């Protein structure tokens, strides 16, 4: 059962991710990205991360991507015009990409013992309670710091996006 779920949603995630990269119109990429995030949320559930899955859907898919869509709307972004590539990107881009893929794949194989498996429900430590507890004890300092970070980001975004007053 877990295997089937994994395969389905992994496939969806991959297809949507490819779509993000391949589509010419930004809005299509944005919608595909929402799809990726959704399927990832399911996969998180599989891995026992209930809280994170919920946060993923609410924050990521629900807020960040909406922000993206609004911006695309605001800018009236159209299809991307086909134009030349930079030389360096052409030359190195593909090898870098393939190299990266290869390295990561190899690492991924070796990082965990081959017999380790994931089954739904095997890890129960991802509840909101557990996350909250860790957040307010061990990770209190990063928590507070990120609060300030968000504050700064808000101020920064407001300042940057303001229309010039003359």
């Amino acid at each position, binding site marked *: 059962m877990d295997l089937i779920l994994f395969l389905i949603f992994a496939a969806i995630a991959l297809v949507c991710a490819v779509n993000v990269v391949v589509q010419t119109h930004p809005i299509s990429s944005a919608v595909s990205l929402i799809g990726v995030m959704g399927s990832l949320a399911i996969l998180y559930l599989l891995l026992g991360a209930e809280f994170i899955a919920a946060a993923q859907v609410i924050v990521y898919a629900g807020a960040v991507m909406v922000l993206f869509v609004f911006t695309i709307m605001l800018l009236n972004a159209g299809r991307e015009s086909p134009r030349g590539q930079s030389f*360096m990107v052409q030359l190195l881009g593909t090898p870098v990409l393939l190299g990266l893929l290869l*390295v990561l794949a190899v690492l991924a194989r070796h990082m965990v013992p081959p017999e380790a498996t994931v089954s739904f429900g095997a890890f129960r430590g991802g509840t909101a309670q557990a996350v909250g507890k860790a957040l307010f004890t061990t990770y209190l300092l990063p928590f507070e710091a990120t609060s300030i970070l968000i504050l700064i980001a808000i101020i920064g975004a407001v300042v940057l996006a303001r229309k010039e007053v003359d």
Partner: protein
Amino acid sequence: MQLWLIPLVPLAGFAINGLFGRRFSKSLVNLFAIGSVLLSFAWVLKTVYGLGDLPTAHVEHYFTWIRSGSLDIGCDFAIDRLTAVMLLVVTGIGSLIHIYAIGYMAHEGGYYRFFAYLNLFMFFMLTLVLAANYAVLFVGWEGVGLCSYLLIGFYFDKRSATNAGNKAFIVNRIGDFGFSLAMFLIFVNFHSLDFARVFGQAPGASVGTLTTIGLLLMVGACGKSAQLPLYVWLPDAMAGPTPVSALIHAATMVTAGVYMTARSWVIYTHAPVAMHTIAIVGIATAFFAATIGLAQNDIKKVFAYSTVSQLGYMFVGIGSGAFSAGIYHLVTHAFFKALLFLGAGSVIHALSGEQDMSKMGGLRKKIPWTFWTMACAAVAIAGVPPFAGYYSKDAILVAAYQQAPWIYWLGVATAGMTAFYVFRAMFLTFFGEYRGGGHPHESPPVMLVPLGVLALLSLGGGFAFRVPDFLRGVFHAGGSVEDPTLMLISVAAGLLGIALAALMYWLKPGMADAFAGRVSGLYKLVYNKYFVDEIYDAAVVRPLVGGSRALLWKLMDTAVIDGMVNGVGAWAREVGGVLERIQSGNIRSYATWVGLGAVMLIVAMGLAGGLIR
């Protein structure tokens, strides 16, 4: 015994006159300058009087100068009878010349500077003489070289003077190089530069080592004491004021080489080859310089070559094992050579600057004091008994005969030439008709009194100061040999020289020129000092300067070193130019580079952590 007072008082005189002399009156400058030297002389007298027999040197250690590894050099002064003799000569003759200089330099500019330098010279010379190890001696050695340079170039607005100063210093440096090598060898072999320790160990060292050390020390002595082939600076040094020529280039500095080799007698007695080399160099120099002195017209140049020649004599004495005879001649030579120079200075002063003897003549009536005192010096240097030069010169010649008779015969010939050219100078200057255009006037008493004192010393110094007896305990060498026949021959040679000079320059004045006309080629050669300076210039100086310019300057400095330094800068710019192209402004290419770097980093970390095999 407070030996340090002896050099330090003149040093104080130098400091006071050097720093404040510009504002002093002449009398105040005199007070400090002359006073310090006289005080030093007085202290020397007191010290020597209380010296006693002194089987070993009395050493005073003041402070440790250098201590590095096994090298331990202290600032040590020592006194034994040899030092005592030198001290008396330096301070005694030094005082007389200082007094003389009051009159001679009265009308010259830079009065206080002159006396400051002179005092500084006294300090260094006394340090040299009092030194108890080679290092302190070398300090004095270099210091007197410096003062010689300063004083030769005293009239610094004259090109000839500054060139002569440079020449003296540079040629001396060559000698100093030899001296330095000798010191290195001494340290390597004996692990000390202390006289006592070195001479204690020297008899046990190998003959080859001692010979090498001896020869290298001789090179140093050749530089300082103007022997072949490093004598060329001394005649040019006559560009300095005459008291300088008298003090430094007759009585004291040039004798430093003789003193140094005499002090190292232990090394030489165990290295016969080196000692014999010294004798050969000495007699060659003596003969060679005497021939040049025959034809010179500048009165100071005659005496300069005479000094070179007489120094050669001293080295013959050293080289024949008669160390005390060499020192004896040093003492008597100080008397009569200083007198000759001071007298020449008096003549020049009388003629308001004229130095060319062809423009002199008949001066004995006009400046009688100068004439009679110089005459005393002339008979002394000619070796006429019983005056000073006779005793010392014969002691050397007799010792030379024991070593190698040919040296004796050359020495006799040189003695004859010495008498000849000195009396030639006397006759040309004082006899005949006055050929110049000036108004000769006698010098002031302040100049004449030292002349008188030196005249007495030249006449009586020989039998009054029995230097070899005084030094018997120092050198442990054999006693002086008396051989009446040899002495008679050398005296005869001297008298012959006087007679010949009298004939050619007094009784029959035209004879000299006629003779010169018949041997015109030889005469030209001798008159131009065998073109030695020109040969040195062409063979050594010009290639060196040219080579330095072409090789060291243009090639090494400009091309290689500047090239390297500038090249590094240019290369950095090149590399920067290449790397600049990464900064394309294109964000995606930046990202590509980042990606590449990230991949490499991950691979590296994986390899290091053992995850990727």
